[in-house]
């Protein structure tokens, strides 16, 4: 849990912020707020910040509910890697449950949801839709890692101003 899965796959300058949360629903909001504020300060547009907030909340919720099975003592590790032109957000749980590979490419439909008892299954799909890059891997000890990237399309350095939309 303490080693950084992605710290060496690029050269500096990059800076990493680590966040460790208890595995209790509600605390995903703190990760969401922290990453959202960081993205905003990096110059991401409001719609991109919102997309990241939702994607991260889903990933942390999954880590709490599935990966750590709501065990309060288990931690969810969120790493925010600030690069010149992108923000990398990774979420790791402690792997009390293995993430099925076939869950990763599901495309849920609302019509199916109408007739199912379990109307869930939108989280991973939303993550995939909302960020620029996403990667699911298994770490040491069976921990599940989700690595999400959003790219900064900036034309100027002004705060919030002059960024091109996407």
């Amino acid at each position: 849990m303490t080693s950084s899965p992605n710290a060496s796959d690029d050269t500096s300058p990059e800076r990493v912020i680590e966040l460790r949360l208890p595995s209790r629903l509600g605390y995903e909001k703190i990760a969401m707020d922290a990453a959202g504020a960081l993205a905003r300060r990096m110059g991401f547009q409001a719609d991109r910040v919102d997309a990241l907030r939702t994607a991260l909340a889903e990933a942390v919720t999954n880590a709490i509910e599935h990966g750590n099975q709501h065990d309060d003592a288990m931690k969810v590790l969120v790493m925010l890697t600030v690069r010149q032109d992108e923000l990398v957000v990774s979420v790791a749980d402690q792997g009390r449950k293995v993430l099925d590979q076939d869950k990763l490419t599901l495309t849920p439909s609302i019509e199916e949801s109408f007739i199912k008892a379990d109307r869930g299954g939108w989280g991973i799909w939303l993550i995939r839709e909302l960020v620029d890059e996403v990667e699911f891997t298994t770490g040491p000890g069976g921990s599940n890692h989700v690595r999400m990237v959003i790219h900064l399309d900036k034309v100027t350095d002004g705060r919030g101003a002059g960024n091109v939309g996407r």
Partner: protein
Amino acid sequence: MLEDELNVSIRERDQVAIIDLMGDVTTFAEEKINTAYTKVTEIGAKKILLNFRQNDYINSAGIAILIGVVTEVNRNSQRLAVSGLSQHFQRIFRMVGLSQYIDIYQDEEEALHGLASA
């Protein structure tokens, strides 16, 4: 303390049952939302407006609850609209397909206007 942050209340305007949702719409919202829906349905509401306020957090569990409401609304031949959603959550509602079954309005007034002529 951080878990449940939703206040749900019911009112009526122009023959529309308005369910105000203030706060987070997550798994903790299920009972509150379903209870409110059942209540307005029991008193015969045919037009229902979910009026979102200060919702900076609606997650996939919240979406699933709303899909459940749509299922019931279709079964009971009611009409469902939403108002007050941020641009972001309007986008999410479109992505998921909820917008095919729910009329999305910017605010309450627009929604009441739209539902009146529906």
